[in-house]
């Protein structure tokens, strides 16, 4: 496999990583700790994207106020991703619509794509890490 991979300037391997988020925030820690992996991955100069499917789309909600549950509000981290050169954020249209949401409900700009488009994109990845 390695010989097929694109080489970055330093001679290191660049793989396509997809971080696939399927869990809602706060009810479990997966969204928060999943985001921590994404931030760390930025230091490795890989070709990183994030996809939001199923309840994972709820991670992107605006108007989050966690003061009443005394948990850290990490909504702003999604806005900070751009500063880490993580700019490819995909939302599956079917998941978004099944939850009565539109792009306007999200805290960051995302690319909404159909299941078929996202499936094709998944097939192109070298590594998929799903939470």
């Amino acid at each position, binding site marked *: 496999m390695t010989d097929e991979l694109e080489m970055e300037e330093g001679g290191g391997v660049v793989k396509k990583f997809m971080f696939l988020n399927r869990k809602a925030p706060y009810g479990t820690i997966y969204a928060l700790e999943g985001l921590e992996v994404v931030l760390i991955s930025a230091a490795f100069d890989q070709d990183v994207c994030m996809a939001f499917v199923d309840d994972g789309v709820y991670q992107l909600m605006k108007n989050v106020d966690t003061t009443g549950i005394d948990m850290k509000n990490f909504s702003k981290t999604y806005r900070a991703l751009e500063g880490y050169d993580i700019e490819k954020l995909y939302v599956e249209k079917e998941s978004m619509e099944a939850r009565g949401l539109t792009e306007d409900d999200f805290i960051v700009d995302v690319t909404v794509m159909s299941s078929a488009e996202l499936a094709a994109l998944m097939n192109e990845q*070298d590594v998929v890490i799903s939470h």
Partner: protein
Amino acid sequence: MLHIVNKSPTERNSLDSCLRLATKGSAVLLIEDAVYAATKGTAAAAKLQAAMADLKVYALAPDLNARGVAGRVLEGVNLVDYGGFVDLVAEHNTCQSWL
């Protein structure tokens, strides 16, 4: 691509999501509680059988045995052991676990 599902289809939506996002020619491996989806007479059976037109479906035999459902496996589901699980991962470029 190899899709690995480990949740019962009557408890979570992982199998539905997997089938929605698995493309023609992909493989689906059912492990842990997902092996119930590979058994006859369940609500998921028809869904899985329809998916078999485009996907190869496998189930982990040790997990079927552990749950007492080895005798109820749907026709067309291929049984593998852990060695077969390793082979499936090796044969496909990427794998995705629908946790």
